[in-house]
């Protein structure tokens, strides 16, 4: 990398060697580091290695700790949408931890690629060369936002591994289907399995990320264990959780919320303060954990990642392609 424009998330002088999880309790640190070996075995029987694969994450010098202050872990893991486990934001933490197994987990690469393959997630992490941490803004289509320290690896590395054929223009992601464990799938609140898609150039963008952990720990079930997409310049629903297959296709794949309500949710789902949702404005957002009155801020174009991604959409009418 020759000349690098500074990233939006590294503008401040707040780059320190200290932990950036603002006074993360020691106890948590210990859990992160050793996962208390014996303790982990007790907590997740038979999954000692699986649960700790890749941890602790390696620091990536290109993505140092930034000025962004992570949202309290309690809200990141206790207040989110995962309709497979209920439609209330407090549901997933409860419903996704009633015996749903995410370990072992196989992820399949298929479609228009030279190296179709099936991997155990932990083997995949090893093959990729470990995980790193990135702190990204997260903007939900419902006009609220968080800051989340993800652990994982660049999606581009997975694309390279699959080695797409020239005809491959899109990635189609499919999540799990397990109505026995997922109350939302039993209720049929959406079309399942959840599917999402990216253009291949979007997938190769440096920001596109596959997360396997948050806050230095493996992903909790409710956050999309064991592997999920993170595209911080897009609305949250693009970030498909608990991925089972990644298929490379020549045509634009469908995505679940677009199937449900095409006039409200598009394929691109780029964060855009100037394009309203049909039922609310996207000009500003509520900061989760921001307190009683002080928690609102203006929404930024591409969620503040304009420098990194604007080039992807040159000439595209963003009003039509919402």
């Amino acid at each position, binding site marked *: 990398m020759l000349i690098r424009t500074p990233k939006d998330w590294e503008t401040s002088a707040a780059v320190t060697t200290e932990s950036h999880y603002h006074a993360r309790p020691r106890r948590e640190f210990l859990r992160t580091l050793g996962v208390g070996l014996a303790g982990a075995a007790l907590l997740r029987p038979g999954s000692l290695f699986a649960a700790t694969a890749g941890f602790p994450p390696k620091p990536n010098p290109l993505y140092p700790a930034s000025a962004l202050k992570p949202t*309290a872990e*309690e809200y990141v893991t206790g*207040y989110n949408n995962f309709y497979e486990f209920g439609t209330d934001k407090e549901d997933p933490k409860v419903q996704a931890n009633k015996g749903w197994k995410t370990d072992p987990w196989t992820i399949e690469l298929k479609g228009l690629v030279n190296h179709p393959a099936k991997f155990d997630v932990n083997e995949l992490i090893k093959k990729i060369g470990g995980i790193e941490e990135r702190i990204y803004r997260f903007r939900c289509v419902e006009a609220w936002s968080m800051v989340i320290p993800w652990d994982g690896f660049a999606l581009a590395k997975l694309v390279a591994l699959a080695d797409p054929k020239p005809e491959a223009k899109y990635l189609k992601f499919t999540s799990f289907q397990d109505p026995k464990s997922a109350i939302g799938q039993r209720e049929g609140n959406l079309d399942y399995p959840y599917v999402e898609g990216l253009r291949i150039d979007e997938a190769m963008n440096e920001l596109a990320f596959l997360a396997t952990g948050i806050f230095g720990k493996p992903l909790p079930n409710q956050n999309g264990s064991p592997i999920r997409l993170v595209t911080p310049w897009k609305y949250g629903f693009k970030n498909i959780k608990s991925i089972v297959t990644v298929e490379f296709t020549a045509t634009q794949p469908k995505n679940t919320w677009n199937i449900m309500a095409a006039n*409200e949710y598009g394929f691109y789902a780029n964060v855009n303060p100037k394009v309203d949702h049909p*039922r*609310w404005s996207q000009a500003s957002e509520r900061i989760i954990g921001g307190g009683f*009155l002080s928690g609102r801020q203006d929404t930024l174009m591409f969620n503040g990642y304009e420098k990194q991604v604007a080039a992807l959409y040159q000439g595209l009418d963003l009003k039509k392609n919402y």
Partner: protein
Amino acid sequence: MLEKLLRSKIFIWTLLVLPGLWLAWPLFVTHRPALGADPLKFIYLHFGFVACVLLAIVLTFTPLRVLFPKSKLALALNRHRRLVGVASFAYALLHLTAYLLHEGGFRTLLHDAFEKPKLFILAGLATFTILLVLAVTSLHALVRWMGGKRWKNLHRLVYLAAALAAYHQIYARKLFPVQVLWIFGPLALLEVARILRQRSKARPA
């Protein structure tokens, strides 16, 4: 016993204030992420919910009396129509106030209602306006000044308000919220029953 309770203004008052106090309850007792994550949102959705429930409840009083003319309970409830109706307005006002604090004030309201109008916001605004007019015209002096007939005609608007509130509640969510059926379903059934009853009465035997 139940009839006596239901006749009591103080009892009904207490019932009407409780949903407001209930909000504070989890703050002290249990830990709920939703409350800390986005407290104002939690609060304004709750107030909207209570406003809808009270609106649906107060509208059941008249059909209950028509369908069960001999029931003392139905009679007791009908003493409180004004009180419950005004309480529904009060919760709607709290809902609107918390919404304004949460969503960026009148700038957002004007944007979503008029600049780039959103039907579900307009429905909320219309509901609120109707409830406001009805609450104001429920002052004794105004009722007398208007005269019974005009007052009655004006207050038929409450049915429009209920329909708009149901629409507003449904479209506030990304997926159809089943609780709308629980809230407005009984009212709809009672109204159908009342209309059938009144028709069969109107017809000469």
